[in-house]
């Protein structure tokens, strides 16, 4: 018999610290699969955020940095400028990238920095206990929006893929989800494409991945994938927002 599914080679065989059902694990795996398929584990250099996924540096078997909160794109820029033939990626949550790291991501994109950003949007600050994120949906209850997010107090959710697409330096921008196998496949393709665009030096690439956080959503993992499907996707439409000319 032939293995039709097994752990990617560049994905270390250690238990992950995530909560049961947390889809960070799936997204990690997709990155590792891409590294395998593009045969670039020797050139890949990853930058971990501060957030639940901070320990990604332990899980993926390439050189890694742990960046300060929100600054992964700046760290990646420093790395890429020194190692122009490296394949440099960041992996960031929505607190990390869409809040404290707004300036860094906007300007990495504006510079057309040749890096790939995997942006995990789970609509909360998970690691610190489920506070409102910039991506939290209207009406969503979090530990800092006990009565649900209201526009008067907290404004409106930020659509990063849409916003970064307005910048001339961004090259490939998409939004995908990993709440079911079909979408996982699409997510994989998009992540791979982003890396390929980077390897052709076509500029800044980002894949926004909708992800669940059962723990802070106060739902079971099964309920969570449903919630994502029914609530997040309508506000955060999936698809490719920007594609370079000939890819």
């Amino acid at each position, binding site marked *: 018999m*032939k293995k*039709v599914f097994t752990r990617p080679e560049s994905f270390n065989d250690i238990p992950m610290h995530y909560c049961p059902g947390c889809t960070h694990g*799936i997204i990690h795996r997709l990155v590792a699969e891409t590294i395998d398929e593009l045969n670039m584990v020797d050139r890949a250099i990853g930058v971990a955020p501060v957030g639940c996924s901070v320990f990604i540096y332990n899980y993926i078997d390439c050189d890694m940095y742990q960046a300060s909160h929100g600054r992964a794109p700046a760290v990646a820029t420093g790395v890429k400028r020194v190692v122009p033939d490296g394949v440099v990626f960041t992996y960031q949550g929505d607190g990390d990238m869409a809040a404290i790291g707004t300036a860094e991501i906007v300007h990495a994109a504006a510079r057309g920095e040749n890096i790939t950003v995997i942006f995990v949007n789970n609509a909360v600050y998970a690691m610190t206990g489920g506070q409102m994120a910039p991506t939290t949906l209207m009406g969503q209850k979090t530990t800092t929006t006990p009565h649900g997010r209201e526009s008067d107090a907290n404004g409106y959710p930020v659509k990063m893929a849409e916003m970064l697409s307005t910048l001339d330096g961004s090259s490939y921008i998409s939004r995908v989800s990993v709440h079911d196998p079909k979408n996982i496949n699409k997510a994989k393709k998009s992540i791979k494409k982003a890396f390929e665009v980077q390897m052709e030096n076509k500029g800044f690439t980002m894949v926004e991945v909708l992800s669940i956080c*059962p723990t802070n959503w106060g739902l079971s993992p099964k309920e969570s994938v449903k919630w994502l499907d029914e609530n997040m996707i309508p506000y955060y439409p999936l698809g490719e927002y920007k594609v370079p000319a000939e890819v």
Partner: protein
Amino acid sequence: MARVTFREERCKGCELCTLVCPKGLITMSEHINSMGFHPATITDMDKCNGCALCARMCPDLVIEVERDEKKVV
């Protein structure tokens, strides 16, 4: 012919795999593993077609899937 293997001690009992098996073959065990979770398991291996949707859905790489060569599409 296909085979799914569960690495029980890594399973966190999230049940996402049960959601996606097109044949509804996966259930949660009665017993708990060393982390205190009820691990997933397959009820009727014969019915499994090796589609690997369960494995692709599992966030913790608990599941490996093998399949007869000829069946590969």
